[in-house]
């Protein structure tokens, strides 16, 4: 075999490069986002509860916001009565962001991780009144 050493060395380098993304990340599973609940409004709650259960909110909040939007804007209904009987104003800025006033550490931490970029903030303002 001509140039056997070079070929084998080349193959080893090739294999190393091609597997490097995997090798370099061994044991470093990408950390799941940790949305922070540390806001004044939530810290004051005796029972830390969202509008619905955390499981439902995690998977269903986008759909819920769509429903809220249509109910408020098109029907003029503004009050949401949750499963547990609690009443909430259906509003992005006056409900969600009143409790979750740390949009960056809460909403954005998940959204950046999941690479979703809701366009809501073109118009809706976060509590600091600065949009995004």
């Amino acid at each position, binding site marked *: 075999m001509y140039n056997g050493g070079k070929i084998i060395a080349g193959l080893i380098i090739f294999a190393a490069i091609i597997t490097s993304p995997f090798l370099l990340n061994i044991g470093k599973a990408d950390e799941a986002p940790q949305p922070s609940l540390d806001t004044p409004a939530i810290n004051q709650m005796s029972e830390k509860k969202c509008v*619905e259960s955390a499981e*439902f909110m995690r998977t*269903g909040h986008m*759909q*819920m916001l*769509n*429903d809220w*939007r249509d*109910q*408020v*804007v*098109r029907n*003029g*209904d*503004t*009050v*949401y*009565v*949750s*499963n547990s*009987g609690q009443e909430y*104003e*259906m509003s*992005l*800025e*006056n409900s969600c962001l009143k409790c979750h006033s740390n949009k960056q550490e809460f909403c954005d931490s998940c959204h950046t991780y999941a690479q979703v970029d809701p366009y809501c903030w*073109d*118009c*809706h*303002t*976060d*509590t*600091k*009144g*600065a*949009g995004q």
Partner: protein
Amino acid sequence: MDRRSFLKLLAVTGVGGVAVFEGINQFGATEAAEIKKSTKSLQGKHWGMVIDVSKFQNAEDFKRIANACHSYHNVPDIDDPKQEIKWIWQDDFEHTFAELESNYLSEKIKQQQFPVLCNHCESPACVRVCPTKATFKRDDGIVAMDYHRCIGCRFCMAACPFGARSFNFFDPRPYIKEINPEIPTRTKGVVEKCTFCVERLDKGLGPLCEEASRGGIVFGDLDDPNSEVRKVLGENFSIRRKVELGTGPSIYYIFGGGGQSA
């Protein structure tokens, strides 16, 4: 399978299918026990306004109502008549009541300015032309905007005979002095206009221009014979803008007595 059992099966699957889809459809994916109006919300069949022109004598009277509206609703302050955004503003007699032309207008009427805003028409041309139903008529007569659906085609602006609609040619946020965090702004590429303060009515409050007008504007239900607006209309000579176009404006103008600034 004979015909009889086939029909029975069809009936059962039909009923079952409807029940399943009804169940899925209820409230989409939300778990709400109930979605309802606020108990405080103002209910009306046909909201309208009466504007007493005699209460609008100087620039200050106009500025007060425009400021109340524009600062609350995050309406940008753009100093260019081609690109400005306005929900409530002022205009002279000839532009406000073009069809009431007279060869010999009194100097007083020539000088008089009139508050103008969206007329929340009975059969609004803007609603008819909107391809996405972004602008629509609520059951209480308000011509509302669903900014989420607006694609910025501007058909509504072409259709509106009152120039009540403005287009956002660029991001309005840099032109808003202080953003009211309770209300969304709008963004580049959508049309906006007066909403008759729907978000306030739904919470039991009246429109801001009425509140700031010191009695120059009365708001109420035109379908209710006992309402304040109807009382005022019953006692005064009133006119509406461009009625010959058949859109049926819900804003009435009276020329009151007094002559005093509010």
